[in-house]
């Protein structure tokens, strides 16, 4: 048994732990534990009151059982009892149990807080510390509510013991992290800052943590800490190695406190006061100087703690980014570490240099270490070190060394660990684009990327190469030739086929003059790989084929044969089938001119930030807790946007399809409930029943292409239009307008991925035939886009249902007897003639369905009033089904002939 446990150990506990350790199997352990639990339970329930020692022992056993991974559902009360013991050992076990098994049982929380309160005010430093540690460990909201006001007083009171101050400072820090709203700043803050001057370095250490955290949130409140921190730091770094006694660690004076002070200073810009600034610079120079001195000890602890301070000082120098000499000195120091035999130091030097590379003062100095870094990439055994080397190469890359760095990264990629390949691919793609002077080099690099690490080349990367080739006509011929050659390989990656298919479809003509890459050879080459590909790639290749028909009329029959084959025309995949059918049809009926226009070469893509860069930024997110908001954004972000070449190609050519098609009406099911029949103002309910009461809420989604903008319509008394930008780029000059409809102007800018809502207040001025058209205009990249959307607003939306008796109905029916007032239509049923559905459709149309009005019960009769700005039009209708003939006769009588006509059209469409 260890020396310390003599005398105070709990024998029963030691025996129990030994028993558990001697268990040969999991089952035996569980058996032993259950026996113990039964024993403890009977002791706790027994008549005999337990003494403090037994209680402590049993609670401690329970804790041990819990820590072994078993559930504990009793003993909390006994643990709470221990809190009020006046023996330290009993109290300690009580607090430990509470801290480990935090439990939100409200009865207990009250008791626990009560015990803590007593201990906090006990003036016994040991008890005060126990209670403060408990608050700091649990950090619950209830505790914050109870003690957040009290702890600052303990912290700054003159008579508080040093060790209690340490605990109080960190306890307050914890409460500030968990419930910042309950820890208000106050007059105590300035006194806390003065703890930086405290005699006791342990107090200073704890206080510095507290101040650094609070200063991040309220820098102004703690501004005075800067001069005090500099003064303190200066005293530490200039002290002889023995001055600080207890706080000297392996000949390094107060390394942890130095690190904390340097971190606190990183909450602020360089001090404005010249004297303070000078003193700080001296400190930093001293730290850099010490790194060059011979070590005072060979122990690793000595160099580690010395370098801990050094790295933190370098972080501060980089943070200030204002002293060129310090920056260059820092860089040289890190350069020495790059070749150090300690792996830790090489790793940290690479990491630190990465940030140094972005400073204008030290960028050049960092670049001088390129060979060492490349060597690290080749020789380091620890993948995380190699990863840092990749990061640093990326950070130090500029026009002067891009070719070398990209070549080395590609080289490394061949054997790189799977875990970091994707990131390297992104980095290479970005560097190749950013520093390409010669775009043939760029194309070669990306094709190499796909060859070496095709699986790790994301869509963003291959979209981007296509964008660039499209935008630069000087590289198009070279690109076509290169992809053609690359495709000759017996096994090439699908991503290469995508890029190849797209580029040949656009620019295959540029190499068709060479008999080795004649149109037919190009086509056969692509088509030989067609059947091995996934659906999206095949879809892309089909688009290539139709482009080939335009580019190379001589192979049109060959391609048409392919499109016509059963495997295309009857493909199980609806997208492929549709493309095959449409493309074949297009190639048959369109004249050469039309074909040439539709399949014209792609216009240049708008210049904008590379989506690859955005992806890398996301990958290398800030090193804090994962932000759920951010993750969500990431998941929702639609990155394909305008970079999706297939969509874009059809998109730029075809004028927007007719708006009815745009609305995607005639779909399947509806979520639109039947409108409330009685409310007078239900003018807009069920706007989607224009053609068919079973149309879906109109998500405006063209068949293919136009993946830019999503328009959703919803109807509530008003109409709400939602414009969703499905790309990652802004839409500028956004506007939408409808004739004769009051609209609140929409925000002129729609951010990438964002959604915009516009409210339309709609009033019917007079009866009308055509649905109003919403004209949407916006600038996407460079091009002005015009979209016309027919709003699902029809005359029947302005119905108010009218209830009436049979007598009234027929009386009015007779009054509306002029031939113009009545419109009748006899038509065949398009849907099943189910009674309930028919009723719902009539109600949905907006009129009141009148029961027991028509003498024939199978007939339907309805009545309503159309409200327009100027008049009201009474409407009566009668629908007579003939189930045998599957026919309907619909009769409408209204006071206005145009209304009768229109309503009849609208309603007859429903059945």
């Amino acid at each position, binding site marked *: 048994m260890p020396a310390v446990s003599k005398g105070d150990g709990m024998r029963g506990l030691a025996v129990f732990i030994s028993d558990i350790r001697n268990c040969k199997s999991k089952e035996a352990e569980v058996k032993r534990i259950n026996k113990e639990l039964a024993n403890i339970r009977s002791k706790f329930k027994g008549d005999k009151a337990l003494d403090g020692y037994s209680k402590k022992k049993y609670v401690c056993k329970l*804790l041990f059982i819990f820590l072994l991974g078993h559930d504990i559902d009793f003993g909390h009360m006994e643990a709470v009892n221990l809190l009020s013991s006046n023996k330290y050992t009993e109290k300690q076990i009580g607090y430990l149990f509470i801290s480990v098994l935090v439990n939100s049982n409200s009865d207990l929380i009250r008791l626990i807080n009560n015990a803590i309160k007593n201990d906090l005010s006990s003036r016994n430093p040991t008890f005060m510390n126990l209670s403060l540690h408990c608050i700091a460990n649990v950090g619950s909201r209830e505790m914050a509510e109870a003690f957040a006001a009290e702890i600052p007083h303990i912290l700054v009171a003159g008579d508080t013991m040093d060790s209690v101050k*340490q*605990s109080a400072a960190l306890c307050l820090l914890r409460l500030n992290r968990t419930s910042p709203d309950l820890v208000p700043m106050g007059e105590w803050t300035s006194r806390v800052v003065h703890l930086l001057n405290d005699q006791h*370095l342990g107090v200073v250490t*704890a206080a510095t943590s507290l101040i650094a955290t609070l200063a991040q949130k309220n820098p102004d409140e703690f501004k005075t800490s800067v001069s005090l921190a500099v003064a303190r730091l200066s005293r530490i770094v200039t002290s002889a190695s023995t001055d600080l006694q207890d706080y000297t660690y392996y000949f390094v004076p107060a390394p942890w406190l130095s690190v904390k002070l340097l971190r606190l200073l990183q909450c602020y810009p360089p001090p404005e006061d010249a004297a303070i600034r000078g003193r700080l610079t001296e400190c930093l120079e001293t730290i850099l100087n010490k790194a060059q001195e011979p070590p005072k000890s060979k122990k690793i602890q000595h160099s580690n703690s010395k370098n801990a301070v050094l790295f933190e000082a370098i972080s501060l120098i980089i943070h200030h980014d204002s002293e060129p000499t310090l920056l260059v000195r820092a860089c040289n120091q890190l350069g020495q570490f790059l070749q150090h035999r300690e792996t830790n130091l090489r790793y*940290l030097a690479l990491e630190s240099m990465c940030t140094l590379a972005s400073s204008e003062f030290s960028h050049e100095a960092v670049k001088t270490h390129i060979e060492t870094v490349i060597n690290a990439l080749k020789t380091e055994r620890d993948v995380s070190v190699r990863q840092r080397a990749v990061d640093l190469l990326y950070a130090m890359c500029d026009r002067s060394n891009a070719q070398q760095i990209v070549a080395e990264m590609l080289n490394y990629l061949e054997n790189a660990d799977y875990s970091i390949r994707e990131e390297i691919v992104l980095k290479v793609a970005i560097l190749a684009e950013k520093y390409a002077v010669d775009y043939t080099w760029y194309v070669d690099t990306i094709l190499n990327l796909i060859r070496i690490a095709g699986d790790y080349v994301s869509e963003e990367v291959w979209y981007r190469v296509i964008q660039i080739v499209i935008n630069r006509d000087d590289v198009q011929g070279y690109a076509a030739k290169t992809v053609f050659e690359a495709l000759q390989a017996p096994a090439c990656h699908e991503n290469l086929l995508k890029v190849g298919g797209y580029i040949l479809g656009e620019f295959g003509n540029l190499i068709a003059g060479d008999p080795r890459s004649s149109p037919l050879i190009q086509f056969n080459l692509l088509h030989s790989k067609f059947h091995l590909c996934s659906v999206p790639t095949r879809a892309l290749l089909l688009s290539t084929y139709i482009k080939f028909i335009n580019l190379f009329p001589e192979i049109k029959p060959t391609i048409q044969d392919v499109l016509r084959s059963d495997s295309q025309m009857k493909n199980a995949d609806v997208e492929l089938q549709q493309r095959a059918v449409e493309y074949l049809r297009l190639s048959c009926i369109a004249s050469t001119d039309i074909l040439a226009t539709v399949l014209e070469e792609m216009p240049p893509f708008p210049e904008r930030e590379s989506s690859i860069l955005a992806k890398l930024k996301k990958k290398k997110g800030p090193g*804090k807790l994962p932000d759920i908001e951010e993750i969500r954004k990431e998941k929702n972000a639609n990155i394909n946007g305008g970079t999706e070449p297939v969509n874009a190609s059809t998109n730029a050519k075809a004028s927007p399809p007719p708006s009815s098609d745009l609305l995607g009406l005639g779909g399947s099911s509806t979520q639109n409930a039947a409108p409330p029949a009685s409310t007078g103002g239900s003018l807009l309910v069920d706007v989607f029943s224009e053609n068919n009461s079973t149309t879906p809420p109109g998500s405006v989604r063209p068949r293919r292409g136009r993946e830019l903008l999503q328009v959703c319509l919803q109807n509530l008394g008003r109409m709400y239009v939602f414009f969703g930008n499905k790309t990652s780029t802004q839409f500028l000059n956004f506007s939408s307008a409808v004739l004769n409809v009051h609209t609140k102007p929409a925000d002129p800018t729609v951010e990438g991925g964002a959604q915009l809502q516009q409210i339309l207040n709609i009033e019917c001025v007079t009866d009308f035939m055509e649905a109003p058209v919403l004209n949407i205009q916006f600038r996407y990249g460079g091009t002005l886009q015009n979209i016309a959307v027919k709003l699902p607003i029809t005359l029947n939306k302005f119905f108010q249902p009218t209830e009436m008796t049979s007598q009234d109905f027929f009386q009015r029916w007779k009054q509306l007897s002029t031939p113009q007032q009545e419109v009748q239509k006899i038509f065949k049923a398009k849907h099943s003639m189910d009674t309930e559905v028919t009723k719902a459709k009539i109600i949905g149309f907006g009129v009141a369905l009148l029961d027991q009005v028509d003498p024939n019960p199978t007939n339907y009769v309805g009545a309503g009033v159309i409200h327009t700005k100027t008049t009201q039009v009474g409407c009566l209708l009668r629908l007579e089904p003939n189930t045998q003939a599957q026919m309907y006769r619909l009769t409408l009588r209204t006071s206005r002939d145009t209304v009768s006509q229109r309503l009849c059209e609208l309603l007859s469409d429903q059945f």
Partner: protein
Amino acid sequence: MIRFVLIQNRAGKTRLAKWYMQFDDDEKQKLIEEVHAVVTVRDAKHTNFVEFRSFKIIYRRYAGLYFCICVDVADNNLAYLEAIHNFVEVLNEYFHNVCELDLVFNFYKVYTVVDEMFLAGEIRETSQTKVLKQLLLLQSLD
């Protein structure tokens, strides 16, 4: 800040787990297993630092025990690496040549040592003399 401190043996048995942020029990178990998997595959040629989820683990091996501290990515690696050693030296002094069994049988005292040196995810006291003095004082209390 420190997110958690773990002491594990090679077999993956936890000898101390101290959490400085809220995790539920299942999550704790998952973290314990992940840390073990990440740390035990590394050898002496590797660094003492491992990226871990959105944090990093600073660890050091003493005989069969791994002392692991999970901290924020921007935290000072070497300072925490030496904080581990400082802690181990205190344990060694306190238990007179500490071994794994000491941590098992005196688990409730180990928590006290931890609370003296680390609190609320921060370093509380670094002076070995002061910590040991305080521990001996507590030891003498009934």
